[in-house]
């Protein structure tokens, strides 16, 4: 009898363990990948995936794609600050070492971003070579909430994912409702300058300016056409005469304010030149991940102070607490928002 019970128990247990061993997951490319049920170590293939896994389950992040610098580390959990850096895991065009990847013993590799045949075949190739499941996740900004829920389920942290997804939904809903109240004529003309010279910008449809378009502003460089990043001349910027200038580099921001050749631009005359906050992950772009959700609040406060009643400092503290799980002090707030908002 005892033997029978133990045999049944063993059979039952083995059925159970087989059923929890793996579950199929259909990723954004339609690939069906077997995922271990208990996912504890995640490797990310690119920066947007790092941010996503960090906000959902920082304890499961195995390493960074790019090592965070000292300023960025200040706004990250201590446990995540000094994780090893594995590089970009994109096959022939990557820098990650396959053996180091295998040695990290990840349960899963996640890549978030655009899904196209190049990335599909890279994922297949890495998965085949290393035997580690590799999933592709669609990372478009409008789908932020969906992405959070999907990856949250994948990592086994659905309750937390739901909380973050709800924040994302509320943020985008508030944005939509607020924008509906802004008359078309009051949408500001904005120029976003990248690089130390500030003469690199994104054309219409560029992923770098996705959030500006989401915020309902007019990207003046859209006049130069559709596409990705491009270099423009100062003459073009003068011709567009933007009402607001946003810059990715503090060097550019301080140069614009003092350089006589920029002095005739409306934004400079009215003192509407601001730096895009970049800690711990960019608020505007770099990387184009869900880190941009707080950028939306910042743009609401900056572009439509009359329509949106934003308490930016409180919002930033709330967002950092919720997403990055760090408390932001008042002094740190000043660091974060240096040059990014109007001085009162």
């Amino acid at each position: 009898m005892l033997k029978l019970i133990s045999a049944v128990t063993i059979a039952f247990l083995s059925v159970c363990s087989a059923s929890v061993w793996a579950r199929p997951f259909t990723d954004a490319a339609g690939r069906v990948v077997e995922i271990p049920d208990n996912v504890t170590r995640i490797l990310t293939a690119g920066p947007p995936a790092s941010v996503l896994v960090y906000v959902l389950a920082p304890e499961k992040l195995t390493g960074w794609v790019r090592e965070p610098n000292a300023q960025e580390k200040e706004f990250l959990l201590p446990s995540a600050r000094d994780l090893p850096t594995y590089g970009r895991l994109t096959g022939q065009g990557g820098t990650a070492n396959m053996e180091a990847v295998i040695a990290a013993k990840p349960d899963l590799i996640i890549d978030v971003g655009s899904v196209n045949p190049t990335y599909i075949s890279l994922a297949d190739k890495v998965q085949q070579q290393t035997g580690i499941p590799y999933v592709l996740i669609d990372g478009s900004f409008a789908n932020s909430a969906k992405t959070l829920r999907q990856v949250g389920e994948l990592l086994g942290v659905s309750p937390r994912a739901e909380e973050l997804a709800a924040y994302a939904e509320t943020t985008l809903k508030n944005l939509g409702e607020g924008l509906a109240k802004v008359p078309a004529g009051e949408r500001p003309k904005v120029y976003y300058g990248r690089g130390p010279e500030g003469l690199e910008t994104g054309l219409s449809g560029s992923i770098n300016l996705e959030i500006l378009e989401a915020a309902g502003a007019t990207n003046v460089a859209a006049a130069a056409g559709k596409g990705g990043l491009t270099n423009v001349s100062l003459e073009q910027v003068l011709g567009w005469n933007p009402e607001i200038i946003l810059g990715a580099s503090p060097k550019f921001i301080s140069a614009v304010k003092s350089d006589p050749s920029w002095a005739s631009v409306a934004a400079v005359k009215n003192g509407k030149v601001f730096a895009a906050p970049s800690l711990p992950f960019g608020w505007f772009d770099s990387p184009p991940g869900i880190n941009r959700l707080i950028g939306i609040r910042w743009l609401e406060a900056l572009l439509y102070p009359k329509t949106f009643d934003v308490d930016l400092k409180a919002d930033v503290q709330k967002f950092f607490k919720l997403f990055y799980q760090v408390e932001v002090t008042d002094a740190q707030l000043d660091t974060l928002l240096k040059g990014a908002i109007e001085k009162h």
Partner: protein
Amino acid sequence: MNSAQDPDRGNRKLVVFGILGVTVLAMASMAIGKYSVPPSAILRVLFAGLTGGQPDVDPIQQTVIWNVRLPRVIAGLLIGAALAAAGATYQGLFRNPLVSPDILGVSAGASLGAVLAIFLKMPVPVIQLMSFCGGLLAVAAVYGVGAAVRGRDPVLTLVLAGVAIGAIVGAGISLVKILADPYDQLPAITYWLLGSLTAVTRADVGSILPAMVIGLLPLVALRWRMNVMTLGDEEAQTLGVDTRLMRLALIFGATLITAASVSIAGIVGWVGLVIPHVARLLVGPDFRRLLPAALLLGGGYMLVVDTLARSVALTEIPLGILTAVVGAPFFLWLLASGKRGWS
């Protein structure tokens, strides 16, 4: 090697010695890596792989050895040997020590092919194929221009046509970079152009093998006529060599192996330029000795460099950086202490 054609028995000794040296390097390279695998497990995996059995080792160790390390070691050997042989051939053909396999635009063409394929979001095998075809097309264009221009020094015409077409192709690469997505595609393009063997699989090695064999055939078969070619067109012709046909066959072979290398490893500079010089300093300019020396030295050198690339830091170091950093001081030392001359 056909020993009846060999001028002296030293050649055979050299080849045997070289093969031994490269074998030792390859075994050492198999044992080094970020994932430590005991030598006994390496041998068991290799033995099981060759006999088709299932080795009695940790499956992760098997993956590391069989799927990651072995393809890299073989690819490194092949690519190093190919680039060095192509460099030695081009240098002899153009009678110029500053010539590298890029002279007729094969690397530039292969880069444009790959960059364009990344930009067009093609799957990896298509990227590799477009790269391979791009390399061949660029050289075909250069050769076509060279053949169309009559009444000038054919070698000089080829070199100048190579420079011009290389410039056009380079402009094309820059244009694609400007248009590429800055997050997804631009880094992939940049790292691809720096060269790496990080993602090489057994299938990749299998796909370049035919091109390698077909390309090396004319180089090996014509190695003694190559010596005549280095005398210059007029003298070679008076000795009864069809210089046009010879040049076509040698350029075809050298281009094929270079394009195949670039298609899976990206741009790995310096090997094709410097290894032939090192070989020349060691064995002299006789192409019958130079070719095997370049093949072995190139393969061995690439093994060393790739082993460093994958074991020095946690992330990969691009090959293009290491080939120069490791190779240049060694080359300068050899130059200063070498006794043999160029001619």
